[in-house]
C-alpha cells in the first residue's frame, strides 16, 4: 500500500515520541499532511492573535487619557502599523488558511491537498516572514511607522527596517499565493465523484472565490512594494513628483490590492457562518445558489471600488461618482447574504451552542459594520468621516465581529472533529459573552469619537475626546484578557473531555461528519460517492 511509505516518513498521530525531540520537530517541519499543516496554521494564528493584540493593548493604554504617558509618538506609530500588518497578514489570513487546509479536503472527499509539499512551504514561509517583520523593531530607526498602507513619501523615511519590511511583505505574499494556488487546484481536481460545483459546501465555495482574489491581488501588492524599493535604492521616481512620478499612483495600486484583500479576509468567514447556521437551525441554507452568485458578485465588485479609500486625494468628479456608485452596489449582494442567513433561521429549530452564538453575533454585528460602510460610501459624508475614528470603528466592526468571530465560531464548530473531544460548553459560552460584550465596548464608542472629530493614527488627543477613549480602552483590555480563556478552552479540549461522535452535532450535513472524531491522519483514501 502506498500509504505505508508515507507513514514511515511522516509518522502518524501518537507515533511521534519514538525519535525524541528532534524527530518530533522534524515531523512538524517536514509534514505534508493537510491536517498537520492546518493545525500549524491555526496554532500560528492563535499565537499572532496575542502578538497583534499585545500591540493593540499598548495603543489603547496610551490612548486611555490625553497626554503622552507611556510611549513616544514614533513608537506609537510603529504599534499601529505593525498591529495592522500582523493582524491582517500573520493572524487572520493564516487562520482561514488553517481552516481551508483542515476542512476543504474533508468537505470535498479528497485524501489531501493537491500539492502537499507546496503546502508545507507556504506555511513555513510564514514564521520567517513575520520574524523578519518583528525584527525590524530592533533595527536603527525602528519598525515601519508609516501606517500599514505604506504610503509614500512617508514610508520612504523608514530607517534601516525599510528593505526588511518590504521583503517580509514579499514573503507573506508568496506564502498566500502558494496557498491560494493549492486551494484552487485541490477544489478543481480532487472533488469526490458526484460532487459538482453547485453541490460544494458554501465554505468551499467562498474559499475558491477567495483563492482567485488572492491570485489577482497579492502580486499587485508585491509590485507596489517593489516600486517603493526601487524608488528608494535604485533611482526610480514612480511615486516622486520631483522625478515625474505621483505619490497618489501608489495609493491606486495599493488599494487595487487592498480592497479585494478586505473580501479575502471576510469571505471565508461568510463560508464558516454558512456552515454553522444551517446546522444549528436544523434546516438547509436558504437560497444556496443565490449565496454562490452573491459571493461571486462581491468578489468581482471588490476589484472596481478601490478608490473609495481615496476620496480626499483630489480625484476628478467623474471618478468620485463612479467609485461612490460602485461601492454602494456592493451593498446589494451583501444584503442578499444577510437576508439569506436570516431566512435560514426562519422556521428552523434553533439551539445556541457556542459556534451558533458566534455566528449570530456575526450576523448582527457584521450588519452594523455594513451600515457604517454604506455611510462611508457617500462621498460628501466621507469627506468628514475619512481618516477619523469613525473609519477605525467601521473596519474593526467588519474585521472583529466579522472575520474574527467567524474564525472563533469555526474553531468551536470543528474543534471536536479535530481533537475527538467536546470542548467545555459552559466556558465556550462564557468566552463568547465576554468577547461579544467587550468588542462592542471597545469599538462602538469609536464611532462617536470619529463623528466628534478625532483623527485616527494620533497618539494623543484633545481632552474633549477623553470619556469615550477611556471606555474604548477598558473594553480593549477586557477583550484582550478574555482571549486567555480561549487558549485555556482549547488546551482543555485537546487534553480530554467528553468523547465526540463522528457527527458531533445534531445531524449536520457535509462529508467531514462521515469520518470519525478525531479525524484520522489519513481520510478518504477511497473517494466517497456523492449523490
Amino acid at each position, binding site marked *: 500500500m502506498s500509504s505505508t511509505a508515507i507513514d514511515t516518513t511522516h509518522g502518524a498521530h501518537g507515533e511521534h515520541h519514538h525519535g525524541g525531540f528532534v524527530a518530533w520537530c522534524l515531523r512538524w517541519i517536514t509534514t505534508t499532511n493537510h491536517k498537520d499543516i492546518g493545525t500549524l496554521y491555526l496554532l500560528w494564528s492563535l499565537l499572532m492573535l496575542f502578538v497583534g493584540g499585545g500591540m493593540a493593548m499598548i495603543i489603547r493604554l496610551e490612548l486611555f487619557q490625553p497626554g503622552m504617558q507611556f510611549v513616544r509618538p*514614533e513608537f506609537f506609530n510603529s504599534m499601529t502599523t505593525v498591529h495592522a500588518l500582523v493582524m491582517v497578514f500573520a493572524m487572520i489570513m493564516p487562520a482561514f488558511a488553517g481552516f481551508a487546509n483542515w476542512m476543504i479536503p474533508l468537505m470535498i472527499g479528497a485524501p489531501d491537498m493537491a500539492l502537499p509539499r507546496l503546502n508545507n512551504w507556504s506555511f513555513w514561509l510564514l514564521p520567517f516572514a513575520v520574524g523578519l517583520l518583528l525584527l525590524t523593531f530592533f533595527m536603527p530607526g525602528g519598525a515601519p511607522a*508609516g501606517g500599514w498602507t505604506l504610503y509614500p513619501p512617508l514610508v520612504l523615511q523608514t530607517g534601516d527596517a525599510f528593505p526588511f519590511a518590504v521583503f517580509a511583505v514579499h514573503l507573506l505574499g508568496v506564502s498566500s499565493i502558494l496557498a491560494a494556488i493549492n486551494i484552487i487546484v485541490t477544489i478543481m481536481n480532487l472533488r469526490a465523484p458526484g460532487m459538482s460545483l453547485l453541490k460544494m459546501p458554501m465554505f468551499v465555495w467562498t474559499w475558491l472565490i477567495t483563492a482567485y482574489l488572492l491570485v489577482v491581488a497579492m502580486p499587485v501588492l508585491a509590485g507596489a512594494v517593489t516600486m517603493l524599493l526601487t524608488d528608494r535604492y535604485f533611482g526610480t521616481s514612480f511615486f516622486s513628483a520631483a522625478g515625474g512620478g505621483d505619490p497618489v499612483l501608489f495609493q491606486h495600486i495599493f488599494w487595487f490590492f487592498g480592497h479585494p484583500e478586505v473580501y479575502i479576509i471576510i469571505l471565508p468567514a461568510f463560508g464558516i457562518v454558512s456552515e454553522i447556521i444551517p446546522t444549528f437551525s*436544523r434546516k438547509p441554507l436558504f437560497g444556496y445558489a443565490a449565496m454562490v452568485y452573491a459571493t461571486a458578485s462581491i468578489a468581482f465588485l471588490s476589484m472596481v471600488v478601490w478608490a473609495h479609500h481615496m476620496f480626499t486625494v483630489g480625484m476628478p*468628479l467623474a471618478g468620485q461618482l463612479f467609485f461612490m456608485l460602485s461601492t454602494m452596489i456592493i451593498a446589494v449582494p451583501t444584503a442578499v447574504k444577510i*437576508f439569506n442567513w436570516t431566512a435560514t433561521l426562519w*422556521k428552523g*429549530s434553533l439551539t445556541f451552542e457556542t459556534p451558533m452564538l458566534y455566528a449570530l453575533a456575526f450576523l448582527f454585528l457584521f450588519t452594523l459594520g455594513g451600515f457604517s460602510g454604506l455611510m462611508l460610501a457617500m462621498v460628501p459624508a466621507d469627506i468628514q468621516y475619512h481618516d477619523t475614528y469613525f473609519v477605525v470603528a467601521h473596519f474593526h466592526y467588519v474585521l472583529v465581529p466579522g472575520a474574527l468571530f467567524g474564525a472563533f465560531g469555526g474553531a468551536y464548530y470543528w474543534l471536536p472533529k479535530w481533537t475527538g473531544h467536546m470542548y467545555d460548553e459552559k466556558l465556550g459560552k462564557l468566552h463568547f459573552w465576554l468577547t461579544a460584550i467587550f468588542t462592542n465596548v471597545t469599538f462602538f464608542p469609536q464611532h462617536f469619537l470619529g463623528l466628534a472629530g478625532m483623527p485616527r493614527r494620533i497618539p494623543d488627543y484633545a481632552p474633549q475626546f477623553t470619556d469615550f477613549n477611556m471606555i474604548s480602552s477598558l473594553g480593549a483590555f477586557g477583550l484582550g484578557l478574555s482571549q486567555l480563556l480561549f487558549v485555556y478552552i482549547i488546551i482543555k479540549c485537546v487534553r480530554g473531555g467528553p468523547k465526540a461522535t463522528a457527527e458531533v452535532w445534531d445531524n449536520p450535513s457535509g462529508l467531514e461528519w462521515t469520518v470519525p472524531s478525531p479525524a484520522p491522519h489519513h481520510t478518504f483514501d477511497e473517494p466517497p460517492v456523492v449523490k
Partner: protein
Amino acid sequence: MTIRTRVLAPVLALLALSIAGPAWSDFELNMPVGVTETSREVHDLHMLVLWICVVIGAATYAAMITAIVKFRKSNGAVAAKFTHNAAIEVVWTAIPAAILVAMAVPAAETLIRMEDTRDSELTIKVTGYQWRWHYDYIDEGVGFYSTLDRESNAARRTGSGIDPTTVDNYLLKVDNDVVVPVDTKVRLLVTAGDVLHAWWMPAFAVKKDAIPGFINEAWFNADTVGTYRGQCAELCGMDHGFMPIVVRVVSQEDYDAWLNTQRARVSALTQ
C-alpha cells in the same frame, strides 16, 4: 508589561473617571453642524443615511430577533424544509437597490457643489510640512507658518507631567491663526513640501490631501464669525498628532485691519 497593564488599567480608569471625569465630560455623540452651507448639507446627508440605516437595521434585526425567540428547539420548534423562494429573493434584491439610488442622488448633488471652486474672492495657498502648516495669501503678499501652541507643545512631551486639561485648547491651538473674512468664498490651494498631509476643518466640511508636487483645490464660505479648530488628517510621521489648524472667521473690517498689520510686519522684515 501588558499583563501589568491589564491589571492596573481598569483600576486606574475607575479612579480617573471618579476624580477627573466630570471635568473632561463631553460625550459628543454626533457630527456637529458646521458654519458653511456645504457643511450643513453634509450633515443633512449624514443624518439621512444614518436614519435609512436605522430603519433598515430595525427591520432586519427585528426579523433576526423574532427568529431567535420564536424558532427555538427548546420551545418545541420543528424545522421547516424550504430551501429557497424566488419571489422573495427578487424582492429583497430589488428593494436595497432602489434605496441606494434614492441615497445616491442627493449625495451626487452635494458632491457636485463641493467640487465647484469658481468665483472665489480670496485664495490661500496651504502647504503642509512635517510638522506645521504654511499659509500664503497669494494675492495679498502675506504669508506665515502656523505651528502648535507652545504650551501644548510642552505638555505633550512623553512624561511631561503637565495635566493636559490645564492647557488652553490642548493640541488644538496654534501660534498664528488663519484669518478670513465672513461670508466670503475662500479658495484653498493645498499642497505639501515633504510627505502627505491633509487639511481638515470639520466646521467647514473641508478635508483635502496635501500632496508634494501636486496642488489640490477646495473652498469654503463661512457665515458665522468665530474660531474654528481642526487637525492634520493624513498620517505624516512622528508629530502627525501635533499639527493643528485654527481658522478665525472675522468681519470684513477686522480682516482688513489684520491684513494691514500683517503687511506692515512683512515690509518691516524686508527692509
